[in-house]
């Protein structure tokens, strides 16, 4: 199995099919990144909320 293209430039062009293939790749990667970073961001936000709750409770001298 060998590299199918003459050089990296040809890899981008893909005999004219380049825009299609690379659009598909880029959109897929974008979507997959979102599927990872959205829940991570949500987790951070949830933790921030909990921290805020704790801070609110301890500031009135001791937790509930």
């Amino acid at each position, binding site marked *: 199995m060998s590299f199918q293209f003459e050089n990296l430039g040809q*890899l981008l062009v*893909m005999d004219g*099919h380049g825009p*299609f*293939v690379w659009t598909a*790749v880029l959109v897929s990667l974008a979507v997959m990144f979102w*599927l*990872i970073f959205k829940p991570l961001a949500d987790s951070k936000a949830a933790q921030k909320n*909990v921290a805020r709750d*704790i801070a609110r409770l301890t500031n009135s001298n001791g937790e509930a």
Partner: protein
Amino acid sequence: MNWLTNWSPSWQWFHRLGSPRWFYQTTGRWLPWLSLLALALLSTGLVWGLGFAPQDAKQGNSFRIIYLHVPASFLALAGYYIMAIAGAIGLIWKMKLSYMVMKSAAPIGAVLTFLALFTGAIWGKPTWGTYWVWDARVTSMLILLFLYLGVLALQYAFHSNEAGNRASAILALVGTVNIPIIYKSVDWWYTLHQPATIKLTSAPSMHPDMFQPLLVMILGFYCFYTVALFLFTRAEILRRERNSTWVKELVMGGQH
């Protein structure tokens, strides 16, 4: 449903399985390895498929989109069954955690279904001259997207409560029963209107050199799906269990 609950096992491990805390801690240990595995499989498969697999005799290089389209389609369908099974477990054993997994599976599956449709459309243009064609597989995938959107809409409308979980679970199960019916109906409908059937979206019978990277990509997508499902469920756990001691300790301890 009572007869089913009475039959349910009360094994300790099974109930521990239902503990959100256990899930959070265990997945926390697994995630680094699983993510690494997913990354390795996906990058290997993608580089292999895009750069090293031979091009298709008829379709040329556009066929390389298959390395994204097929795995996404597999996971889109598998994800629906995962969502439905999680819903069923939640209904039968009244397991909170199972409902959380179900809720997490919905957006992931919907997004992957959209991706399958999108990559399929992009593939269609250079190959068959059109972005969209109403053939059996594309139409079935579109209906699957609608099924996902229905579950998401129902979850959203109920604002996260017990009734909403049950409604979504029931809808997911109703959808599961219907998926084979829908697929068969659409298949039949398509052959009715296209008697000289040229199977437009059938995968070309594949040379091993083309198939192997596909296999790697499928495995990679399964790992990726698991990672995403774990991450979404963990976020949901932190949201719902915010008042519990272990979450508070977790946040105080400054862990992720």
